[in-house]
């Protein structure tokens, strides 16, 4: 039957670009954290430069993310109700509990790692020593780094699970309702996190070896993303998974989606190839493209998914930025992140984050700020 809609309603996207930002940042934070954790927990000195970048990424994005999330609530003042009226059938309700654990955990973890350095700065004779004494909470022990890290790591996995599931279970949105989605969120999270680390490496570290190493890992992460994508398409095309097939058919045939598919493919393939054949001196490029790939994936899933009518014909306009306010939200969250990054690199002795000390008094590197 050929059908032409003559009168139909248009639905606005109900999840705004804020949501994209949240899912983007929280995925980067958790995956970055998971990349940092083994180094600190297993005590791998070689890994420290990379782990420090990862931690920095995890902390800064981890703080920004829930702030973006709050903005996606139309009644942000009522956030406390999440805790007062937890509805256990809702993944979002669970998320409401996990997010603070994770974010608190990341901050505490980072603090713990930096505590010795903070303490030391508090002991020196300078104008802001009191601030650092205060920040160090009057001590320098950090034996709790490992249990804290494990708890936070679990929370990070919880976040990856809940964010994936929260979206995946929405049967009404075929593009979301695919079993692979949580994995894709995680994998693209790694891509984004590595991308950020690459860029920060270029800005702050300038270590060619680290750049190469990160690029190698990016190759791996992109391969996983590409692999998942391929599986997604195979499942959808072959009809083996009806959910995937439905997802594909929901957007197939629209020029804009063909362009998105090509764009997405390029966003994976281009950095993959560059990082593979030229891992050195390309960190800026691969990093930027990787961040963009992780972001664009979520934008496409969330805004694009909401542009697919559930009962109407054609597509809604949701794919395009929803007005100035929506764009400001996107830029604003990046602004906050940048601010935190500057603050972090300025005030935190981040290069001194070392392996946790089982006892006090172990040697520590000199201050470098």
């Amino acid at each position, binding site marked *: *039957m050929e059908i032409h809609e*003559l009168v139909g309603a248009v639905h606005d996207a109900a999840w705004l670009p804020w949501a994209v930002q949240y899912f983007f940042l929280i995925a980067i934070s958790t995956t970055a954290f998971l990349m940092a954790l083994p180094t600190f927990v297993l005590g791998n000195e070689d890994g420290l430069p990379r782990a420090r970048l990862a931690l920095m990424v995890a902390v800064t994005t981890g703080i920004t993310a829930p702030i973006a999330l709050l903005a996606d609530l*139309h009644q942000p003042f009522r956030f406390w109700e999440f805790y007062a009226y937890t*509805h256990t059938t809702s993944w979002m309700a669970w998320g409401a509990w996990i997010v603070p654990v994770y974010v608190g955990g990341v901050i505490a973890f980072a603090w713990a790692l930096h505590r010795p350095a903070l303490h030391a700065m508090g002991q020196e004779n300078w104008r802001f020593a009191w601030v650092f004494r205060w920040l160090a909470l009057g001590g320098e022990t950090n034996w709790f780094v490992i249990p804290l890290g494990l708890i936070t790591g679990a929370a990070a996995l919880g976040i990856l699970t809940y964010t994936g599931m929260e979206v995946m279970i*929405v049967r009404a949105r075929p593009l979301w309702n695919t079993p692979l989605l949580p994995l894709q969120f995680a994998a693209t999270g790694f891509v984004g996190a590595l991308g950020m680390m690459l860029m920060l490496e270029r800005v702050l570290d300038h270590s060619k070896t680290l750049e190469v190493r990160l690029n190698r890992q990016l190759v791996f992460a992109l391969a996983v993303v590409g692999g998942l994508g391929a599986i997604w398409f195979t499942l959808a095309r072959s009809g083996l998974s009806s959910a995937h097939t439905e997802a594909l058919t929901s957007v197939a045939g629209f020029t804009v989606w063909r362009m998105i598919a090509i764009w997405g493919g390029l966003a994976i393939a281009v950095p993959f190839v560059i990082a593979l054949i030229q891992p050195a001196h390309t960190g800026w490029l691969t990093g930027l493209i990787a961040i963009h790939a992780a972001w664009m994936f979520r934008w496409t899933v969330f805004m694009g998914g909401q542009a697919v009518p559930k009962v109407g014909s054609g597509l809604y306009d949701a794919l395009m930025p929803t007005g100035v306010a929506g764009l400001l939200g996107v830029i604003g969250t990046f602004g906050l992140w940048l601010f935190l990054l500057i603050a972090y690199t300025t005030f935190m002795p981040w290069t001194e984050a070392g392996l946790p000390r089982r006892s006090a008094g172990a040697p520590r590197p000199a201050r470098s700020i």
Partner: protein
Amino acid sequence: MDTNRRGFLGAIGRVTIGAAASIAGVTEASASEIATGGPESAVKTKDGHTVHWGMVVDLRKCIGCQACTVACIMENDVPEDSFRTHVSVYEVLKDRQDPAMVMLPRLCNHCDDPPCVPVCPVEATFKAENGEVLVDASRCVGCAYCVQACPYDARFINHETQTADKCTFCYHRTQEGLLPACVETCVGGARNFGDLNDPDSEVSRMLRDNEVSVLRPEMHTNPNVYYIGLDEALDGRVAGEAAYHPPLTSNTHHEESL
């Protein structure tokens, strides 16, 4: 086609289960919610049974006049750019035969298995005792998760109250013995409303006498809005080109200025 067409028996079976489920499961929450909203309570009838509201839309009678759409807007102060109900109009061409018109009224189905309810993180949306799926706006955090979860695009965020909004089956009217606004004003007589638990109600009779179907049966939401004459090709997301919508213009809010 038959999987999504139900006869009367199917409907009755479903309705009974639905009612039982609502009594066993969700009622407590709903009753307390409604209590906070005012003195109303569930509608009961002379013989004491609990009413289960439902709508039967006879597509053969819809003339696409949109009286329902506008009445709903007026009755419920539905903000600009949103609808609690509207009527989609399609030109269809079956097997390259003569083109023909379908007018398809859409609204919340007040599903007995509503996917919008379990996702709500704060239990702000719930199924009331007479079968209505409602939102307690004083509790809703406006997370829009329910908006995503509804397979019918029946929910939206009300940009005035900043909370989830949707058809209430005109809860405020049925509580007072009145018809929903859209039903009261239905020019073609396509929308019919009543108690599915009452075998003598007009809607029960219609379900008995006609082949009926629901929208998106594959979602297993068990809607309480039934359709007579609904072609399968239109019961889900409707393929084909979207209606023309002119670009939005900016000078829409100067009314107050003079």
